[in-house]
């Protein structure tokens, strides 16, 4: 399912989406700019996500992936531009960002104390009403709901284990269950594969693809390595230097499009079933830009 690698004469950059509000969009970003001091982190980022879509947010370290996710979550206000969430849940723009109940979030690299007196099921239960005051007395329906979520992410086996002692992949599942228990329609994951070995990473990707397909939950997953995602991604948002192009993978992962995005010649190569983005041949002194956008600067 590797996208066909074509080269065309089309002008690059035309795949950055405009703002055609289709009404079916779950999330739409309109020309989002974020500036920290004199550093422009995001530049006119615009794309949209529909229900049930699996979207990869691809870019090397420092490309602005985490900032973009924070903007969508309302944790970072855009300098200009707007984030539209379905059903009028507007974030950003003027005023304090409102929280978005239809968005679930799995942050990057959660550091859990191995001695923490908390079981996997307690972490999942915090997703129901962790922000509400009070102790939260256990009830049969709550317990059943937690059990169901744990089963959905295949975490029943370690439901009663100390969460800090679980492996990276197991913790990832618990956090996904935590995020899902609030019944979000969009799930944001920041580099969920970064600390996992290949097999554990593939398991998480398959789990997410199943959720997107079966429950129509849209997934926006950031990664610096796109190859594990190629079989399941419906769309890709490719970030480089704060700019983004988005579209189907075969529309975006192309020599002409990415050269336009990077502002210098890069080449998309297919090597043994893997897609590599490398610096163009006419400038051999440039380092490899990325293996699936891995290396930075």
């Amino acid at each position, binding site marked *: 399912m590797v996208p066909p690698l074509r080269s065309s004469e089309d002008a690059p950059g035309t795949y950055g989406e405009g703002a055609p509000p289709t009404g079916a969009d779950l999330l739409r970003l309109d020309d989002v700019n974020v500036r920290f001091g004199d550093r422009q982190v995001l530049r006119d980022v615009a794309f949209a996500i529909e229900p049930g879509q699996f979207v990869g947010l691809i870019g090397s370290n420092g490309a602005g992936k985490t900032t973009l996710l924070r903007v969508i979550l*309302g944790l970072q206000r855009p300098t200009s531009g707007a984030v539209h969430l379905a059903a009028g849940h507007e974030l950003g723009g003027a005023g304090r960002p409102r929280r978005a109940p239809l968005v679930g979030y799995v942050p990057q690299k959660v550091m859990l104390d191995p001695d923490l007196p908390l079981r996997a099921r307690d972490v999942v239960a915090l997703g129901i009403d962790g*922000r509400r005051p009070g102790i939260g007395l256990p009830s049969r329906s709550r317990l059943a709901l937690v059990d169901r979520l744990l089963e959905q992410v295949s975490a029943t086996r370690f439901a*009663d284990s100390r*969460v800090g002692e679980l492996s990276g992949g197991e913790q990832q599942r618990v956090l996904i269950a935590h995020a899902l228990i609030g019944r979000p329609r969009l799930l944001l994951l920041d580099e969920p594969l970064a600390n996992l070995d290949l097999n554990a990473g593939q398991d998480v990707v398959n789990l997410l693809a199943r959720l997107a397909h079966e429950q129509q939950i849209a997934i926006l997953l950031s990664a610096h390595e796109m190859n594990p995602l190629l079989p399941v991604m419906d769309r890709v948002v490719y970030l480089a230097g704060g700019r983004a192009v988005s579209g189907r993978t075969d529309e975006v992962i192309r020599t002409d499009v990415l050269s336009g995005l990077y502002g210098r010649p890069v080449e998309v190569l297919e090597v043994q079933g893997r897609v590599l983005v490398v610096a163009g041949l006419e400038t051999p002194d440039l380092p490899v830009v990325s293996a699936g956008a891995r290396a930075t600067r």
Partner: protein
Amino acid sequence: MFTGFMVNTWIVASIVALIAGVVGSFVVMRGTAFAAHAIPQGAFAGAALAGLIGVDTILGLGVFSVIAALGIGWLGRRGRHDVAVALSLVVLLALGSLFLSWNTDYEPEIFSLLFGEVLGISSDQVAPTVVLAVVTIALMVVLFRPLLFSSVLPEVAEATGLSTRAMDLIFLIVLALATSMTLPVVGALLIFSLMIGPPAAARSVTANPMTALGISVVLSLVTVWVSIALAYQWNLPVGFFVGTISALWYAVGRAWLAWTRRRRRVAGDDVAEVTVQAAPLGRCRR
């Protein structure tokens, strides 16, 4: 041991143990043990000042521990939390020494503020302790889930609209309240041990947060009761017993945890061996 003035001691000390066991669980979970050490130092300076200008000690304790909490919260926002805590600690301790040097009759007073004076709790100390305890417990009940959430998954909690900073500050204030009531009993230098030892031991023996809280309270109560009895019996400082027994709980808890983990690892190794044999050779590098 259970008559006359000692009745007040048992009542107040039990309340103190209850509070330390509950608040301490979150101190350990949030990794704010250092702040739990620093705030009592601030409170100590307040008590010294109160003695100097002739107002109620508990007022000085309350005001200064809240000031210390707010100071740590405010400074911690701008720089590293541990550095802010360390600086607050040093400045307040310095102030305490200044106030004490101006005070003429301080010797037994300073000793009890630093190391606790459990055996002479007067009946007018009971009422303020009960009031502070009720307020502290009420706050902990209300804050329980949000505090747990923001301690464990700060980023996710923030994304749902729960401000980490606000939780930080509120918890420091709860800590300050707990400090002002526990300090006269166990002393500024030893509150810390009562707030850390029992909860740290409790979390070693269970992964269930509510069970851990319960065990922490029980251990804390036992610590205080045994300490008072031994201090009364042998006429030794109660703080000595509180400190050593708390540390003892911790040692026992860690030993238990290490033992169970080792046992599990031995069991896990058998499984791992089978897996390695079954795995294709290419994967077995390393």
